[in-house]
């Protein structure tokens, strides 16, 4: 599913954020990605999401080398990946429903084809009453849930989440984690970047720990 070989990353002429990163994750696995602030968790997720290129090394996703890839192939692969950003990245002029439906809309499907799925998912994440609200009127927690719903609506094969529980209360955090685990049981590989040790203890899963730009697999 995911294979990184000697991956390194630096921004411009700055220091290497990541170096000699090697790991291999099987399909259907669930991992927490941990490490202190600035250790490169978000950068690693961005590499996996193909929004940046490694300075050196190879990244294989779904059996394909994605370090050299055409824009249309990248778009195809991204449809198989769901991502939850730390800063949500919701579109302000679209309703919660339309934001969540966006990954389906870009595939050319009509709203009637996914109306029930989107509505049900929004009910499930507790946004049933906020479906028509525009993003600016949502609270931080609501935005986070909408961002998570958008990431999982397309039933991705790989889910990347950057601090997905950072803005929600503990009960909602557990609920969202259960959603991730449920998706994982259905076959989605999940990588969750988090600082929340309590949550990691509650949901036992192998960890990828980033220290000094290098990765260590634990558990």
């Amino acid at each position, binding site marked *: 599913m995911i294979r990184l070989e000697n991956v390194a990353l630096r921004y411009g002429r700055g220091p290497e954020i990541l170096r000699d990163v090697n790991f291999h994750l099987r399909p259907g696995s669930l991992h927490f990605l941990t490490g202190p602030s600035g250790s490169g968790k978000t950068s690693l997720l961005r590499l996996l999401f193909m929004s940046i290129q490694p300075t050196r090394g190879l990244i294989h996703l779904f059996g394909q080398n994605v370090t050299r890839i055409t*824009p249309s192939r990248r778009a195809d692969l991204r449809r198989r990946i769901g991502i939850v950003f730390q800063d949500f*990245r919701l579109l302000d002029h679209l309703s919660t429903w339309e934001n969540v439906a966006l990954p389906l809309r870009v595939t050319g499907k*009509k709203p*009637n084809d996914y109306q029930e799925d989107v509505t049900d998912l929004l009910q499930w994440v507790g946004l049933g009453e906020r479906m*028509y609200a*525009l993003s600016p009127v949502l609270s931080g927690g609501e935005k986070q849930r909408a961002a998570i719903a958008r990431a999982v609506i397309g039933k991705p094969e790989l889910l990347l989440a950057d601090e997905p529980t950072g803005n929600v*209360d503990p*009960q909602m955090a557990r609920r969202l984690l259960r959603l991730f685990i449920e998706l994982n049981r259905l076959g989605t590989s999940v990588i969750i970047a988090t600082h929340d040790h309590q949550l990691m203890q509650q949901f036992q899963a192998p960890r990828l720990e980033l220290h000094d730009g290098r990765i260590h697999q634990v558990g």
Partner: protein
Amino acid sequence: MTFQPNNSAPPVTPASKELYSPSRPKERGWGNQHTPIVQAKSVTGSSLVVVISIMCFLASLTAGGVYLINQSAAAWTDNIASEVTVQISINRTENIEDKLSKISFFLTNQPGITGVRPLPLDESADLLEPWLGDGANLKDLPIPRLIAVELDRESKPNLDKLRSDIKKNFKNATLDDHRRWQSQIQTVTRSMALAGLAVLILVGLATTAVIVSATRSAMSSNREIVEVLHFVGATDRFIAREFERHFLSLGIRSGLVGATGSLIVFIFMPFFMRVLGGSNMTSAEVRRLLGTAALDLPGFILLGIVVVVIAALCMLTTRYGVYRILNSQHH
């Protein structure tokens, strides 16, 4: 603290209504309508509409003007080609009216001639009036007399033979088949068509430049939206379509405004000329140059084509511009 989604939602008041999406469905049906991902107001401002409308106005005016001139020129050459003139120079020793009759009789009996009409002296004098003025007593001058000869359009006579026969049989009589005129008209109309084409090309280039700049600015102001679209798996084609639909709509709206403006000009051109100080002679001259100066059905279709071309230019320029910008971001 427990999560209570319903309680955390602020109520919808009239003041906060604009913060709710206008695409709220009725009952359970969403229909297949989408809120545009890229908002029109972030792409095409009113100043851009004005600029493209002016471009389309100029293009329509040029295309319509060249069309009218071509139509008039075609009518002139058609008329000229089916008519020749025999000109008889005045010789004081001859009875000119008698000579006119003889030549007319001769012409009537030639094959390929359907009508012969000797022009009375008054009519010949009228033809010279625009050049010599009406103050002069033209009838006292040795004005050459003319015979208008109408040719059979189906089987025209051999004009070279007719010319030599007239020269041989009648002294001081010459046949003018207006070839020089025809050639001059063709040169003038061809020049005007080329000038019109040059103006159309310039308008097209200016429109393209404006749209390229507007596309760049639209992409820049919607950078975050483009990023999100890429993250959710949108192809460059999808993103380009989101932009180009606004520019297509801009092209159609501006095109219609511009073409309607030019149509008004064509309809009221003679009136405008009178208002701006031209005499009735001016409008008569315009009529002579442009015929009735009114567009017929093909003329209207031509203006429609201008609108379609402007709209297509806006759309395709945007598509190409978006692809170029996205391509540069990918590398």
